[in-house]
């Protein structure tokens, strides 16, 4: 069965420090992969996506993620965190090709807290 695991429920980092949020997926075919961010009381905003090609993808707000097929991972990184990055982060996987119905499977989310 398809699944997405975000092992870290809650992460606290100091402002200016680097960040890595982990995402592991279980999927039989080649997946589409996404990272979304949700600020308190807001909807989800797409940070970045991976469909094919270069396994290192750049997103908005200085985020990047690397797709590692051998590890079934799609970890999100940022070299220097800003206080405004405090939010909930969701990793999601979708199907490619004929299996694609648009259905996304989401991880349980990682809450990022930023210390001043």
């Amino acid at each position: 069965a398809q699944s997405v695991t975000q092992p870290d429920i809650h992460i606290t980092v100091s402002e200016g420090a680097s960040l890595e949020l982990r995402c592991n997926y279980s999927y039989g075919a080649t997946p589409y992969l996404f990272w979304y961010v949700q600020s308190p009381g807001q909807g989800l905003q797409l940070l970045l996506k991976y469909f094919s090609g270069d396994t290192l993808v750049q997103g908005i707000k200085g985020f990047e993620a690397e797709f590692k097929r051998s590890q079934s991972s799609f970890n999100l990184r940022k070299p220097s965190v800003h206080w405004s990055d405090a939010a909930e982060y969701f990793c999601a996987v979708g199907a490619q090709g004929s299996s694609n119905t648009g259905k996304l499977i989401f991880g349980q989310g990682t809450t990022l807290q930023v210390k001043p």
Partner: protein
Amino acid sequence: DTAVSQTPKYLVTQMGNDKSIKCEQNLGHDTMYWYKQDSKKFLKIMFSYNNKELIINETVPNRFSPKSPDKAHLNLHINSLELGDSAVYFCASSQVLTEQYFGPGTRLTVT
């Protein structure tokens, strides 16, 4: 110029009532979705429509009925509301095989 909008933003109602949530997108997308986010922030898809045709119908009580009058609108009607229906409901849209854009959410509280 809101891309995906939902109304209302907050909805407080009593058990047994019937309520609707409306969603509109102005992105020209063909596909629209409803997601439920529970109190633990877990997101799960409920329904998806492509060009007004239902293509995803997850295991959702039949008290929930989506309606798509045109491809820019997808409404969610809920009958006989229960306490367990309290959640945040998100509408989203996409073109086929691409990323989804989410609305701001509707926080439903059933008392």
